[in-house]
């Protein structure tokens, strides 16, 4: 993977699903001609905003190599994702791109302790030779998200809250030192009081570790809070794109406008003064 190439290049990517048998077929354009680019030297938080059926999750899956594009080219660091075959190349790819999933309780096997995944990632990606080395790496990653190995060791997913689990998921994703993290609605299933810790964490990842983040959400307010740039998708197509602040302050496309007007919190209901 070359260093001067863009970190992520999505070039006219489409994904078509066909349903039905021999006699009646239905083509669904989940993603339709989407293009954008994330440059290598400038880590940013790039949001993909859309409702259900907009294709945002399918797009995320394609970036993560879980689905392959029907047409167009999707490349990470210059390498076309569709041309990655075999275990070695797959591992090299995953060392660069890691996911965060929506449901923190589903992200880990409920029957297994959490450190199993942390150690496995350390062993496979960083070549940790033994358990001590793996433990050190796991602890390092956990400290970066505000937890520690002592708190997590031996625990099963149900023993932690959604917010803590999501942080463990971020820590695990950090171990291979990826360049890009794809987060699919990472806080929609997390309690409101714990949400901000995770969202702030993404900012820290960008600023201190130089990791670019593709942040997928339906919540305009959170997207405004952390994004640098964003695109808004409707039924597979990009309807608006640009700098986050300016797009959300004054959206041009009618769909973007209706999304903004549907936000439920009126500006009139802000606290007058925060209590001590």
């Amino acid at each position, binding site marked *: 993977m070359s260093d001067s190439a863009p970190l992520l290049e999505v070039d006219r990517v489409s994904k078509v699903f066909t349903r039905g048998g021999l006699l009646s077929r239905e083509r669904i354009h989940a993603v339709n001609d989407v293009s954008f680019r994330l440059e290598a030297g400038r880590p940013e938080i790039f949001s993909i905003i859309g409702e259900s059926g907009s294709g945002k999750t399918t797009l995320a899956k394609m970036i993560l190599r879980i689905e392959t594009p029907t047409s167009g080219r999707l490349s990470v660091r210059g390498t076309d994702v569709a041309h990655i075959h075999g275990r070695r190349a797959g591992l090299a790819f995953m060392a660069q791109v890691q996911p965060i999933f929506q449901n923190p309780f589903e992200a880990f096997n409920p029957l297994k302790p959490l450190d199993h995944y942390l150690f496995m990632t350390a062993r496979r990606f960083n070549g940790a030779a033994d358990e001590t080395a793996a433990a050190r790496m796991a602890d390092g990653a956990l400290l970066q998200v505000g937890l520690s190995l002592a708190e997590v060791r031996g625990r099963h997913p149900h023993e932690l*809250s959604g917010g803590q689990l999501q942080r463990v998921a971020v820590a695990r994703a950090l171990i291979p030192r990826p360049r890009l993290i794809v987060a699919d609605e990472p806080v929609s299933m997390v309690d409101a*009081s714990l*949400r901000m810790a995770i969202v702030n964490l993404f900012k820290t990842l960008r600023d201190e570790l130089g990791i670019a983040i593709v942040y997928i959400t339906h919540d305009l307010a959170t997207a*405004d809070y952390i994004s640098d740039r964003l695109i808004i998708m409707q039924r597979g197509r990009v309807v608006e794109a640009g700098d986050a602040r300016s797009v959300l302050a004054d959206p041009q496309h009618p769909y973007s406008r209706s999304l903004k007007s549907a936000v*439920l919190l009126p500006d009139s*209901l*802000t*606290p*007058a003064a925060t209590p001590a």
Partner: protein
Amino acid sequence: MLSVQGLKAYYMTRHFGVQREVRAVDGIDFEVLRNEIYGLAGESSCGKTTLIKTIAAAWKPPLQIVAGSVGFTFAPDILRLAPAELARVRWKHLAYIVQGSMSVLNPVRRIRESFVDFAFRHLGVARAEFDRRVSAHLARVKLDPGIVNAYPHQLSGGMRQRVTIALATICRPEFVIADEPTTALDVLVQKDVLDMIREVQREIGSSVLLVTHDLGVHAHVADRMGIMYAGRLVEEAPTRELFRAPRHPYTAHLIASLPRIGDRTTRKPLEGSPPNLAAPPPGCRFHPRCPLAMDRCRAEVPPLQTIGAQHRVACFAVNA
């Protein structure tokens, strides 16, 4: 309209010899007045689902009512009613809108038949008149009356939710419980559905107990709000007042951390996480995470006290 006094409901489970007691609802007192929308807010595992199950008298073992009473004006002590009387009260006086319309609408029966299943018995009119009322009601929730012939899966999520609301309100019940009515819906549809709930409420004049973790929803439709934390009510106030001047540290943090478009100031997170209700902390359940915690908070449970017009708070730091 509704009066809940000292309600305590715990889950007692025995599984292969292991006994656990989860204190989901631990001493709740509140009232819902006539013709108002009362919003109950709280995060996951705060006990609000258990609370509404209890209020709707829809509880089953392992949930047990340990103490307290629930009274409606039309059913003074609903917890002690016999099943036959409960069936009479339900739907005619007390209706329930659930999260996830598909759990209400039978996927193999048409919408019309669902209406018949739910409401025909209660309205006690002839079939022709019943059909007419159903059409009129559907028009009122801005649905084409022709959908009565459709199956649930042929409608979109938003339409299904509106059908659920229509089903719940066709008998003009005096009290409606709405449990996360808009959660799985898209943002655009959510607003429509909420507006509709409010319209229907104003028209029928019923009281609505709206339960959701989403504060935005409450901001949009609730008249008064109550905040639940770990099985207890910690603050209650009219919506405007609650957003403008939240007094309890938990409420204050929740409201301050709400992201708003155009506001990029860094939000400070809250330490810790909601307590495990099987082994909750002593005293005030919020004290491990509270920036204002004092020694007293660890030892005693702060009572819910009135500090302003319809504004109640359970916090020693505030009431001192």
